[in-house]
């Protein structure tokens, strides 16, 4: 069993499937040597990459020499465009493109100055030694800068093919040129064989393959001979490089088909030959590589076959890339009419040009100018008869009729499942079809539809991604906003509730102050209380009555206060305390006034004097019975003060409750009232104790003294109030940044404390009563 390389060395060929033998008609153009055409007035260099991966480095009016670079790109695969001749950039505009669609592309139009001056970068040919001294990287850069693309037709950037990721074992130089009419490669092999071999030597050096095959179809014996001589002359290793003649068959020039014929290996679907360790290069590309390396001469011209019955000067021409096809037509004496086709490429794979002013491109190897009777006329498409001829000739081993059905029905996914992507659009199936179905047209439509669909899918994916990102972002923003709102609301609330707190603190401070005062008074009164205990000969009845009166008074005041508080609470929910405070004050004032009036009345009545003293005795239970009118008055003033205080306290208490449950219910009001009552009682007890003090010390006190005492008491109360407010101010600054919950808790605590205090007081009083 021979290895693959041994078989290659023996010249073994494998059979490729399918293929046809169309009339070649190559002799039309390969009888004459390659000629040049006179310069055109203007050249149109299409710049499809500009705006995407490249920028134009010339502007309108600039002078460009022949071979000057026009574009600059950063992309690895970027190929610069070059000026095909010297002249000025006359305009940069959208011009009709050389494409099956006929769509216009952005082009740089150069008006030739007729001198054809070379760019300074182009130099005389280097010697072989100088070329050998260049590094691989320099070689590749030169190839890229020369803008060399595959000249077989696909125009793939050559420098990418020459720097593969994997090891290359076999290089195939493609000189097949299997399509009818075209003889450009044939002629360049005949005339420039040494240069081609030099180019092949550079490729050989860059890729260092184990074998290199120059494959030429056996319908070009002259080319084979020339190449063989050139190979013998060249420095390439004789054992690893050979020229193989391939039997003529269309489309053995296809990359995958050629690999199959030469190695028997099939390039997998979707793979590239480099994955098998194989690289295929066109002979014209090898020539261009040689020019680029030796002379720094960019790819600005190529051999183009101009052929067909509609030209009188059929042959091959060195045509600068960018030459308007109309210029070529005039120079080659085009004799066709307006409706005669101008085909770019061969009869099998070419396309009809829409506009004669389109320029030639790097991949345009042939301009076919057929007479109206030369090619098979377009016939009416008949139904498929399922003859299966197309399947026999398909070089890619596809099922053309199945593909046709699915493409026609626009069932593109099914067409894809029949490997539509592997169709090379060679046109064999169309050629053999007895029903004249333009099969390749259908496949092209299907392919572009599939491509568009894939593009749409990608676009949809992108849109979805962006939509999701946006939605996410909006949600994040919303959440952040809400949090901020919440935070600021909490701050506001805490600011607000700090005033609540203040109220609470105020209440607490008041209670404390009161307690302190009570203690102090109790201390001062301790002596008197002991004494007063001694005077326990008071009448219980009177005591009770006066106590009841005082209680009733306090109750009334409290109820009133609670009622107003209730109203305001129901009206204003949150900002209660501040608004309700003044109301309470008013209430307190009213209560005080009522109390005063009552006290006056009591003072007027001599009996009332008794009761008022009993009022004091009620608490201490130790007031002297024979009290005079003045005392009664004092008691009245005391009562006034009490009422005031009670009212103030009430408001404070209510402030507490308002923060917890703004609309205070009856029960609460009642509780508050009771508390107020108890407080009032206590206050009364204290005051009366005070009085008792004075009274007990000097029983026969005159009016003046009592009055003084009352005023003192009043002043004390006032002072206490002032202190409280100061305290409150302190607490307010401290408690400002407290949040809602805390405030509420504090309020609840304060309430509880207040309640407790009230309870204590009331129990105390009760106790005292007892």
């Amino acid at each position, binding site marked *: 069993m021979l290895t693959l390389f041994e078989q290659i060395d023996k010249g073994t060929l494998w059979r490729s499937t399918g293929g046809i033998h169309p009339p070649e008609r190559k002799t039309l153009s390969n009888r004459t040597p390659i000629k040049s055409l006179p310069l055109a007035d203007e050249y149109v260099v299409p710049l*499809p990459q500009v705006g995407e991966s490249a920028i134009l480095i010339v502007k309108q009016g600039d002078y460009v020499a022949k071979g000057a670079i026009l574009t600059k790109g950063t992309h690895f695969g970027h190929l610069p465009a070059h000026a095909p001749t010297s002249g000025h950039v006359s305009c940069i505009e959208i011009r009709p*493109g050389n*494409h*099956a*669609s*006929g*769509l216009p*592309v952005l082009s740089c139009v150069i008006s030739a100055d007729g001198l054809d001056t070379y760019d300074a970068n182009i130099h005389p040919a280097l010697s072989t030694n100088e070329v050998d001294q260049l590094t691989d990287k320099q070689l590749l850069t030169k190839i890229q800068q020369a803008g060399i693309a595959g000249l077989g037709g696909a125009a793939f950037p050559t420098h990418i093919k020459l720097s593969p990721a994997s090891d290359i074992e076999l290089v195939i130089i493609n000189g097949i040129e299997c399509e009818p009419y075209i003889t450009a490669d044939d002629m360049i092999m005949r005339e420039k064989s040494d240069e081609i071999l030099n180019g092949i030597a550079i490729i050989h050096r860059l890729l260092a393959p184990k074998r290199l095959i120059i494959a030429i179809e056996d319908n070009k014996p002259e080319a084979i001979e020339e190449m063989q001589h050139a190979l013998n002359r060249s420095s390439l290793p004789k054992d690893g490089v050979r020229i193989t003649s391939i039997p003529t068959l269309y489309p053995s020039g296809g990359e995958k088909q050629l690999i199959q014929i030469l190695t028997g290996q099939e390039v997998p679907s979707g793979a590239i030959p480099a994955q098998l360790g194989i690289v295929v290069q066109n002979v014209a590309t090898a020539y261009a590589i040689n020019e680029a390396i030796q002379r720094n001469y960019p790819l600005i011209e190529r051999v183009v076959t101009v052929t067909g019955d509609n030209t009188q000067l059929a042959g091959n021409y060195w045509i600068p890339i960018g030459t308007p096809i109309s210029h070529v037509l005039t120079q080659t004496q085009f004799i066709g009419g307006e409706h005669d086709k101008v085909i770019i490429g061969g009869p099998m794979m070419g396309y009809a040009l829409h506009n004669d002013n389109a320029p030639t491109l790097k991949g345009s190897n042939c301009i076919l100018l057929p007479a109206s009777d030369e090619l098979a006329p377009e016939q*009416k498409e008949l139904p498929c008869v399922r003859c299966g001829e197309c399947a026999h000739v398909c070089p890619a081993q596809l099922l053309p009729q199945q593909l046709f059905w699915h493409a026609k029905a626009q069932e593109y996914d099914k067409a894809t499942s029949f490997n539509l992507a592997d169709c090379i659009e060679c046109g064999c199936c169309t050629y053999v079809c007895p029903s004249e179905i333009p099969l390749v*047209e259908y496949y*092209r*439509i299907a*392919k*572009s*539809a599939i491509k*568009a*669909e894939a*593009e*749409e899918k990608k*676009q*949809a*994916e*992108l*849109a*979805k991604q*962006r*939509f999701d*990102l*946006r939605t996410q972002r909006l949600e994040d923003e919303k959440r952040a906003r809400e949090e901020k709102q919440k935070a600021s609301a909490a701050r506001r609330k805490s600011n607000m509730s700090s005033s609540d707190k203040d109220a609470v603190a105020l209440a607490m401070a008041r209670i404390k102050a009161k307690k302190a005062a009570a203690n102090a008074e109790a201390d001062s009164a301790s002596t008197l209380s002991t004494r007063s205990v001694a005077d326990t000969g008071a009448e219980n009845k009177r005591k009770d009555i006066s106590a009841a009166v005082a209680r009733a008074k306090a109750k009334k005041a409290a109820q009133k206060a609670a009622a107003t508080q209730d109203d305001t609470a129901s009206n204003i929910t949150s900002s209660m305390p501040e608004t309700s405070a003044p109301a309470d004050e008013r209430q307190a004032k009213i209560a005080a006034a009522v109390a005063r009036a009552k006290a006056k009345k009591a003072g007027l009545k001599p009996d009332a004097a008794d009761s008022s003293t009993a009022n004091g005795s009620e608490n201490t239970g130790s007031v002297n019975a024979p009290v005079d009118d003045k005392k009664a008055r004092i008691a009245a003033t005391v009562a006034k003060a009490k009422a005031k205080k009670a009212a103030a306290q009430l408001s404070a208490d209510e402030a507490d409750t308002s923060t917890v449950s703004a609309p205070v219910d009856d029960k609460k009001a009642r509780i508050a009232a009771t508390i107020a009552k108890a407080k009032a009682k206590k206050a009364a007890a204290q005051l009366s104790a005070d009085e008792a003090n004075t009274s007990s010390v000097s029983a026969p006190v005159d009016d003046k003294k009592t009055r003084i005492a009352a005023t003192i008491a009043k002043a004390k109360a006032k002072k206490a109030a002032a202190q409280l407010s100061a305290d409150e101010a302190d607490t307010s600054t401290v408690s400002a940044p407290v949040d809602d919950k805390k405030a509420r808790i504090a309020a609840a605590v304060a309430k509880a404390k207040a309640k407790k205090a009230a309870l204590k007081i009331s129990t105390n009083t009760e106790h005292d009563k007892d």
Partner: protein
Amino acid sequence: MSGIFIAIILLTVLALFFGLLLGFAAEKFKVEGDPLVDQLEALLPQTQCGQCGYPGCRPYAEAIANGDKINKCPPGGAATMEKLADMAGVDPEPLTATEEVQIKKVAYIREDECIGCTKCIQACPVDAILGTGKLMHTVITDYCTGCDLCVEPCPVDCIDMLPVTQNIKTWDWKLNAIPVKTIDEDVKC
């Protein structure tokens, strides 16, 4: 007699075994959510334009899964409608929108008329408009889905919806592939 018992025991054991197997599989390979919605959503063009009456493609997919009509997506065109019909298992219906609406368009801002109000930026569902307050805005046409949503909010009406121009890359062979033919009138035999 013992044969019957063996058979019963054997079958019971088998039944138990397979029961356990099925129970395990049901837990292990449980399908979360409704896969149909995801599949339907994958078919929609994701323009998020709201022309279906739902606030995005996913809500519409959910609505189709719940029995809504499949012909409410003008950006998707007839092809999408057919796929949706296929997926949802209903009959294809003609689209509700006119042909004109179905031409793919992208938004362009007449930049010298733009006052920089950012309203279109807020409206764009795919963040394809670039700009900031009081400065000119522009559309990143590659990202534009042609949903039309930015046109309405513009206070100076400076947004145009222009059809996507074809270039060599986006060209579709269909355009000039089929020549017009005159069909001979039927000749009665």
